[in-house]
């Protein structure tokens, strides 16, 4: 009874939600907006690539790569948006045999499992819940029994979570397996909303939206959640429309025969992505259900967030370099593009580095990539930027929980830019083939690491301040007067970019500052 009260939260946030349907006029409007946006990009590009805009050719190439890589991603995003589809709900037949796998590792909090297992018990469609446990903690076995779950003692299997899943597959025989992350609290209708799609024999896995119940816990939690809203909203819905929706670690339901056809669940830091690329390459189809049927925890302290980002960056690059080429020929055209876009997402670390370096390079050595006239730049860039924002906001009508998720997502953007060096490190580790040990995403806040976590943003800010100081000194005492008077605008505009960079860094700094002192983790 007491346990039931602990999880049985009937507050409004734990209710089932489905993204708003797509109407005809919305499709037409999206088509028109995308048409205008592409035209604006052509307008911008025709102006951008002119010899008279070039100052230092090498830097211009770098700046062009960074800028047009971003625009290219926007293009693909719009194409995806154009293909948004929601699957028609299908009532599942009675009598399917279904397993729910949830894994536990040493150090994960007991209370979390109590909550999740109790909620799993309440899922309406008949199923068996398995706790895949390597904690060697007798409390966990007892908890499983109490919650009517089967306890599987799985100690010492390599590959962490995926290793345990594969071993559990051998010991069980259900036809459908829902892999439920232990921090996620499923709603009673979970299985009813996904199992029906398996009546099509070609469907290998069904993914649902991931949503969170703790975004209000901290700045980081809010930012991390903001980074996911659009993905589980319009992006995955578009991917469903092009047959490219992927499995995302938690809350994916697999057909046993599909998993067995590829030798079990994929292993690695991006094991979910490995699994889905292999299933797609094996000809299995995927379904994305734009519904919230569970809510979990999003990292709420900077350390866990960055660890998670490093893990993903390393893992996703690994998929790009190793799994993607192997699967390439067997993927559909849409899948080829889609997995490339996912695989290259974290290259944003590289483009951030380029953007950061440009003002520094100008102020240190006087080289700048472009000699553009501000008025012309604005005239050609603003239509594209404006349309990008309009489309972004318009597509938010298909978020799974628009009331909570709609917005400019500035926290998410700040923290994404603030994590650039982590993305780069992930790329570097993947290129060198250096393993990152499997780090489970922390489910509690960690504190007291201010200096370690703020080293990078502080470095950027101090470097910027130092550069501005040196620039002032040189202009006052050393540089030729004519040069000083002529370069006032250019110099202080570049110094302005340094300030903007510092503001971008301040998001991560603020997050680290909030985590500076130890607080008791909430149970």
């Amino acid at each position: 009874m007491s346990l039931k009260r602990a999880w049985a939260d009937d507050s409004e946030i734990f209710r089932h939600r489905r993204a708003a349907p797509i109407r005809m006029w919305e499709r037409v409007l999206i088509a028109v907006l995308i048409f205008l946006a592409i035209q604006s990009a052509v307008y911008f590009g025709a102006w951008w690539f002119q010899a008279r805009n070039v100052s230092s050719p090498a830097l211009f190439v770098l700046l062009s790569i960074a800028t047009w890589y971003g625009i290219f991603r926007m293009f693909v995003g719009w194409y995806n948006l154009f293909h948004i589809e929601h699957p028609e709900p299908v009532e599942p037949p009675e009598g399917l045999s279904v397993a729910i796998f949830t894994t536990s590792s040493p150090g994960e909090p007991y209370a979390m499992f109590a909550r999740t297992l109790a909620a799993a018990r309440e899922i309406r469609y008949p199923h068996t819940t398995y706790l895949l446990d390597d904690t060697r903690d007798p409390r966990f076995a007892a908890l499983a029994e109490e919650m009517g779950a089967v306890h599987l003692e799985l100690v010492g299997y390599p590959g962490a979570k995926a290793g345990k899943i594969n071993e559990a597959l051998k010991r069980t025989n259900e036809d459908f397996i829902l892999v439920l992350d232990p921090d996620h609290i499923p709603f009673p209708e979970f299985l009813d909303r996904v199992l029906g799609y398996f009546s099509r024999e070609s469907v290998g896995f069904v993914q649902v939206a991931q949503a969170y119940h703790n975004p209000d816990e901290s700045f980081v939690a809010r930012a991390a959640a903001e980074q996911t809203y659009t993905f589980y909203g319009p992006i995955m819905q578009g991917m469903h429309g092009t047959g490219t929706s992927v499995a995302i670690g938690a809350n994916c339901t697999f057909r046993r025969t599909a998993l067995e056809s590829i030798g079990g669940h994929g292993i690695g830091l991006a094991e979910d992505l490995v699994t889905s690329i292999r299933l797609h390459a094996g000809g299995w189809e995927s379904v994305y259900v734009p519904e919230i049927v569970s809510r979990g925890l999003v990292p709420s302290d900077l350390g866990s967030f960055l660890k998670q980002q490093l893990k993903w960056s390393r893992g996703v690059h690994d998929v790009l370099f190793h799994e993607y080429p192997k699967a390439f020929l067997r993927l559909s055209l849409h899948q080829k593009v889609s997995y490339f876009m996912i695989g290259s997402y974290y290259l944003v670390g590289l483009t951030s580095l380029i953007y950061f370096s440009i003002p520094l390079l100008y102020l240190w050595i006087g080289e700048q990539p472009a000699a553009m006239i501000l008025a012309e730049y604005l005239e050609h860039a603003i239509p594209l930027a404006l349309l990008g924002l309009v489309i972004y906001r318009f597509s938010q009508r298909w978020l799974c929980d628009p009331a909570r998720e709609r917005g400019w997502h500035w926290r998410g953007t700040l923290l994404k830019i603030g994590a650039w060096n982590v993305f780069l490190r992930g790329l570097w580790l993947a290129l060198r083939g250096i393993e990152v040990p499997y780090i489970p995403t922390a489910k509690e806040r960690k504190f007291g690491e201010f200096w370690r976590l703020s080293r990078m943003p502080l470095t950027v800010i101090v470097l910027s301040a130092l550069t501005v100081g040196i620039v002032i000194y040189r202009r006052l005492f050393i540089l030729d007067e004519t040069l000083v008077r002529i370069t006032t605008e250019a110099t202080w505009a570049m110094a302005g970019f340094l300030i903007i960079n510092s503001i971008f860094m301040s998001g991560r700094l603020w997050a680290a500052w909030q985590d500076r002192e130890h607080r008791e983790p909430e149970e």
Partner: protein
Amino acid sequence: VTPKRLYLTAFFALGWLLAIGVAFQLGLASAVASAYRRAASKLDWISQRASDAEGAALTRVRQNSRRDYLEPMRPVLQSVDALKNPPKILFGAYDGGFPNNTTGFTTLESQLRYRFPIISFYSAWGDKPDQQFPLRMVETIDRLGSVPLITWEPWVTDFDSRARTNLPSKTDREYGSLAAIAKGEYDFYVSPWAEAAAQFRKPIFLRFAHEMNDPYRYPWGPQNGNRPDDFIAAWRRVHDIFQKKGATNVIWVWSPHISMPWFEYYYPGDHVVDWVGIGILNYGNVASWSRWWSLHQILDKAYPTLSKFNKPMMVVELGTLANGGDMLAWYQQAFYQLEHTYGRIRSVIFFNQRADVTMSAYPLNWTIGQDPRAAEFVAKELARLSAQ
């Protein structure tokens, strides 16, 4: 849905899309442009204040600023009347790299141990932002303590046909362009330019449509059906607009090509001209049409005619290449002649272009500094003449 109906729907949808797209681009682009124009004066104001603050700090911490060096000449350089009839020869310089790259200009000044009271640059007509009144440039020159000389070139094809529907198409525009200016077809451009020049308030030398009598060079030349009367009428109209806008700070430099015949027929009149400008560029032996000519050889024949206008003369472009002769001797002779033979010349602007490609396939080097002996001689002459 029949294929025909589908085809028709797609056809009309595409048409509508294109129409919406074109309207969107044109509308938004012009909205952004006009918003920018409104914001531009504020941006200018901000950068002015920033530059003023920086300049104030600079003069506080440095002993000899360029402006301080030119301080003794301040009374002359601030007065339009004095600049129309200067007590001493006024020297100036044009540098090809300026203002994007100041190395050439500062090198020239340090080699000559001199700070030029006049800084010359070129500005073309057109719709682009950098073709409007070069406020930032003249402000900077003013802060450096000098007076700007703007060569103002009516490249009428640089106006956007979409936005300027009253103008003929670009291919038809160059023919008779001076008559069109005289008729007022380009007042839309001249008026705001004149207004901005008036707002600057400090003196500006303006050399409009130079070398108008040379049929081989610029589109406003006689090869495009521009007759002397057209030039005079265009000049007067432009001058008139400047007067109406109150741009009395502008000093007018009429500057024909003196090696081409009949330049005197292009003279717009005593009441609208303040200076007579001439170009003295010795191309040496780089081209079939050129030989090593001294200043005297270039100027001698035209000088009596030019003198008849009874205006002070300005060598707006003075320079020699090193190809085919001795630069030191050329400058020695030039300075001697300027002082003793051509007393009406009251201003000389050095043409310090390091890589000039306007007249040849390979870049020509007009810098004095390429010959240290010539530079040393000119430095001493400048010191001597300014001490007088």
